[in-house]
């Protein structure tokens, strides 16, 4: 019973990847669109895109880290 609850908790924690992937997809789409509209600003657009992607990836990694902690440390 307890092992089952821990498994469900780890699965819910790993769902943060959905939000991160959606956000990254939107951001990359808008960035590609604006580079197509004005190609000489592509350096600035690219560095702003990298900054946004870093922040979004961090929250996904936090969720994965919590899931790993639950599976390996709590379920022992």
């Amino acid at each position: 019973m307890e092992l089952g609850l821990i498994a469900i908790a780890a699965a819910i924690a790993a769902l943060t990847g959905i939000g991160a992937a959606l956000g990254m997809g939107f951001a990359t789409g808008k960035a590609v669109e604006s580079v197509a509209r004005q190609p000489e600003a592509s350096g600035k657009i690219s560095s702003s895109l990298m900054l946004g992607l870093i922040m979004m990836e961090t929250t996904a990694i936090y969720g994965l880290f919590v899931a790993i902690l639950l599976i390996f440390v709590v379920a022992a």
Partner: protein
Amino acid sequence: MTSSLMLSSGMDLGESIYPEMLELGGVTLPLSGIIGTALVLILLLAAYFIRRSMKNWQDTPRGLQNVIELIVDTVHNFANDKVSPYADTLAPFTLTFMVYILFGTCIELFGIPPITKDVNCALALGLTSFVIVNVMALRALGLRGRIKHLATPSAVVLPIKVLTDCIAPLSMTLRLFANILVGYLIMHLIYLFCPVILPGALSVYFTLLHAAIQCYVFGTLNLNYVQEALE
């Protein structure tokens, strides 16, 4: 709460999330500290030998001098784009961080545990970045200017900005630590289940890409925080 990871079927992974310590003749030393120090000594020796083999500076560089100039110029232009007046101070810091983190996490390919698998190493790097940001801001603006810069639209945002500045090194720490630890654990599981060809193919993604992305991310974020504090 044991200090080594176990799969739920009771099989012991032999790895641990907590920092590993070595006992050498009565003194307890952290394993990642020893590996990090050895890595720094090897890098310093390599730098000395590279410098000695480039005795004649040529105006149009060829060979090894070309590669070194390419790397240093790229990082210097990168720092110049963001923090123009202080690029001479910050570009060496950025390149040092990136080289240390890149080599420290790519040694995982040789079977040595990467240095940021230990949360103390990641915390030290995060706190160093915090100190760099605050010292550069205090030198440029002074204490009064810094407080006024933190309370810019109105005095209500001062606690929020102070909290954001204090959480920034913590998030850098956790980002570095969690990325490297997760990659290491997944590679370890793959080694246990299929030790033949699959680890070599997948370690290009899980090890090399994570290490390269995290090293670039750390350098970029450091420069961004300095730029934000100095504008």
